[in-house]
C-alpha cells in the first residue's frame, strides 16, 4: 500500500483523538452523581441546539416560511413551549440536587424527556435547513 506520510499521520492522529474522546467523554468524575451530571449536560446541549435553530429561523424568516414551513411552525411553537419545559427541568434538577431520592429522579427524568424531545426535533430540523443551504447568516 502506497500511502504518503502525511496520510498516515492524519489517520494515526484521528484514531488517537477518537480514543481520547471516548476515554474522556464517557466517565463521571468520582464523587459526582451521574444522574445530575447527565441532566446538566443534557440541559446545556438542548439549549444550544434549540437556540441554534431559533437563530437560523430568525435570520431567514421568510425563506423558512416558504421553503420549510413545517420547520418554521415548529420553531414558532418551540419559542413558546421550550422555555417552560426547560425551566421545569431546571426546577426538577434543583429539587433532585437537594434531595437525591428515587422519586425526584423519576420527576427529573420526566421533565428532561420533554426538553430532550424538543431538542431532538430541533436537531433534525437544523439538518434539514442546512441541507437546503439555510444557515444562520441570512440567505
Amino acid at each position, binding site marked *: 500500500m502506497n500511502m504518503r506520510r*502525511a496520510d498516515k*499521520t*492524519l489517520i494515526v*492522529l*484521528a484514531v488517537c*483523538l*477518537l480514543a*481520547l*474522546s471516548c476515554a*474522556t*467523554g*464517557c*466517565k*463521571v*468524575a468520582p464523587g*459526582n*452523581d451521574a444522574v*445530575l*451530571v447527565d441532566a*446538566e*449536560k443534557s*440541559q*446545556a*446541549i438542548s*439549549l444550544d441546539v434549540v*437556540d441554534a435553530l*431559533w437563530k437560523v429561523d*430568525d435570520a431567514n*424568516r*421568510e425563506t423558512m*416560511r416558504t421553503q420549510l414551513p413545517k420547520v418554521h411552525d415548529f420553531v*414558532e411553537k418551540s*419559542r*413558546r413551549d*421550550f*422555555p417552560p419545559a*426547560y*425551566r421545569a427541568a*431546571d426546577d426538577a434538577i434543583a429539587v433532585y*440536587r437537594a434531595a437525591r431520592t428515587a422519586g425526584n429522579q423519576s420527576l427529573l427524568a420526566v421533565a428532561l424527556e420533554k426538553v430532550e424531545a424538543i431538542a431532538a426535533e430541533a436537531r433534525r430540523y437544523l439538518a434539514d435547513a442546512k441541507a437546503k443551504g439555510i444557515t444562520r447568516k441570512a440567505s
Partner: protein
Amino acid sequence: MDYFSLIMAAIQLIEKVIGDAQQTGELTPAQVVQLQDRAAQVFSSAESRTDDQVPQSEGGTQGG
C-alpha cells in the same frame, strides 16, 4: 487546503467534541447560575421573536 490546515481543522473539531463531552462533574453553583443566565437571555430574545411580535418589515406577517 494543505495537510497542515486539514490536520489543524481536524484537531479543532475534535477538541470541541471532547470539550462538549468532557463535563464529568456536577456544575458548580456559579456554573449553574451562568447556565440559568444564558437560558434567560436566550428565552427573552426568542419569546420576543415570534411571528406576531416581529415587525412586518422583517417578514413578521404570514403571507398566506
